């Protein structure tokens, strides 16, 4: 219903990867549990975060092939902290208009 901005996508992906190192398909599944995004949304986001130095990757063998895992860097953690602050502020602003009771 509400569009997810690219900053919000970055923040959510960083949050998921900050919990544990994980792989692309799993991140997509986790994201889709919370918001409606298309399956093709995530690769560009992961690639961007990787290029910015927020995420790192490593390959791990899994059932006779390699699985690419994403892990959060120190920079990524710093970005996530900032995103959390910005999001709380954003939410407060929207709520100040939306909430039923008057101030």
């Amino acid at each position, binding site marked *: 219903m509400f569009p997810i901005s690219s900053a919000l996508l970055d923040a959510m992906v960083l949050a998921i990867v900050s919990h544990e190192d994980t792989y692309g398909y799993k991140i997509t599944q986790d994201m889709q549990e919370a918001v409606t995004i298309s*399956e093709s949304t995530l690769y560009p986001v992961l690639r961007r975060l990787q290029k910015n130095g927020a995420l790192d990757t490593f390959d791990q063998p899994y059932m006779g092939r390699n699985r690419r895992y994403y892990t959060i860097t120190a920079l990524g953690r710093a970005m996530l902290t900032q995103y959390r602050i910005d999001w709380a502020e954003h939410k407060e602003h929207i709520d100040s208009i939306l909430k039923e009771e008057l101030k």
Partner: protein
Amino acid sequence: MSAREFLEQLEGCLSRLPAEERENAMAYYREYFMEAGEDKEDEAAASLGSPQSVAERIINESEEALSEVVYREHEEENVQSAPVTEEKIDPAHTVLMILLIIISSPIWLAAFIVIIAFCFAIACVPVSLGVSSLAVLVQGIVEICTGEFGYAIMDIGSAAAIAGFVMLIWQPVFKLTGILEGSIKKFFKTAFNRRNK
């Protein structure tokens, strides 16, 4: 559409990307189909949409990142080059500049003093008027105490009139002296910046 078809078409659509970018994206989507499971390939391909639209998103993102990198590099260049030019001081030029300042001192020193005196004279007008207004006001108050009400009213009125006039000319006078001060500063700045070139 099968996974193989999807991946083939995707690779075709990504041909304009650098090889590294293309290979990275292909590896991601190959893995994506593996994770979905062989029996769910068609479903996964359907939920991804057309290979063309998937490719478009990848290309858009990659080009955005590219232009951002170029922009950042430019910024860094600017940041680096700015202080370098300012720090370049040629000692020979400095000596010449000092000599020039000393030799030409009869001209610029006189001009400088004239400008300063001019500023001072202009600034004196509102200050002296303000002081005289105060003096006349004091005289008026003394006259009230001594019972000379006629003179008192005249003096207090003149004091108010002078004070009003001072308030009127205060702003323009200080603006004028401010402009003169600014131009003196500018003159010295340009004179001293020249030696850096």
